[in-house]
């Protein structure tokens, strides 16, 4: 866990909330919750050291590996 990344993301998220929230006042609750949940996902992901853990590309490569091998032949 890298604190720098986490704090920076948290700071950016804070700014986003400050800027966007007043505009969303009249919006339905669903929208507000979606907004917050997405931000929280972002915050959650920022806690990991992303470049060094197996990412989606690896999973996909794993799935499609057989095809790739055909091509490599």
């Amino acid at each position, binding site marked *: 866990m890298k604190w720098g990344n986490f704090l920076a993301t948290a700071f950016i998220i804070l*700014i986003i909330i*400050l*800027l966007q929230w*007043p*505009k969303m006042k009249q919006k339905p609750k669903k929208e507000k919750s979606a907004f917050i949940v997405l931000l929280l996902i972002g915050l959650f992901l920022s806690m990991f050291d992303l470049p060094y853990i197996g990412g989606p590309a690896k999973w996909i490569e794993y799935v499609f590996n057989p095809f790739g091998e055909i091509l490599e032949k």
Partner: protein
Amino acid sequence: MPKRRSHFIKKFLIFISFIGSIFLLSGCWDRWETNDIAIVTATAIDKKGDNQIELSLQIFIPKAFGMSSSPSGGAGGGAVKELTFVISQKGVNMADALSKLQAELPRKIFWGQCKVFIFGEKIAKEGIQDHLDFLLRHPQPRERAYMFVSKGKAKHILELQSRLERSSAETMRELVDLEIGLKVTLKDLNEMLTSEAQAAALPYLKTMTEKGKKKSFQFPKIFGSAVIKKDQMVGYISQRETRGILWIRDEIKSYTVTFEPEEKKGNISLNPVTAKVDLIPQINGVNWSMLVKIQTEGTVIQNNSSLDTSNLSNLKVVEKAFQDGIRKRVEFVIEKVQNELRADILGFAKEFHREYPKQWRKVENRWDEVFPKVKIKYDIKAHIRKEGYINKPMKFRIEEEKE
């Protein structure tokens, strides 16, 4: 009104963060002032000791340039101040030597303007591929930089002075641009060495000395070409032979063709000469042959012979002589390349590959053996189209007037 207020807060925050980040960011990373870089104008690579190389850089001195160009500085009128200096360092490979050099220079080495790379003869004989890897991988050296091989130590050439140009590097670059000798860029070299033939020819530099009355002056001169096969220099062909290569490669541009018509004394010179060259590969069973087809035209620039070219029958004789001259030249060099050097610097392999891909694949791996056996046929057509501002040779006139 709350809406407007929030809008303002938003814009203000964005503005502040924008400005803040700009101030945080500026002043670091990739910014290099022109007075913090050492502009490399030419590079020389030499062999040093057993397993080491010596990397020499010719570096531009902006201070001196400013002096020589400003009117007050040039008042002395004495010797031209040197605009460059050479610094060298050894290392196991280029990157290593470079990092050592960087430690010696107060400014960051900048390759972006380096247009001349010279390999010393020794290192060229040992192999240049390893060094090309660095030049091609590093983002700064240019693909358009010219490549040379020098007789003796390459570093010496960098140290030479130049009378007309800013530096010896500039001299060499301009020389190549005139297209008197071969013109090989880094990209070309890379392409030639990885192509089917795996052979290349590079301009070969020599240091010449001109003895003046007070002091002698040394200058670099392109003197034929170095032939590189796989990645080693295997031989050398003279300037005269290089012209033959230029003929076949269709690169002759600004040089004068001089030949002697049969049975007549004196020479005729042609300039400019234009040519169209085709290499037509032919395969007949196991016999591989190459048809060299040259169509050329020239303008008479000097006529010292006793032939009046305005006479049509004479013209035929002259044209025949012109034709033979070219043929001789081309034959000579092909002979040398095929049998002596055994390096396909003329790109025959490529032609065969393109025309006969199937047959080519069979010999792909033993092209070295096949190449010397390729028969060469010639089809040369040479014409003289113009004879310049005067028609008869000057000699004739004088004689006529006498009579």
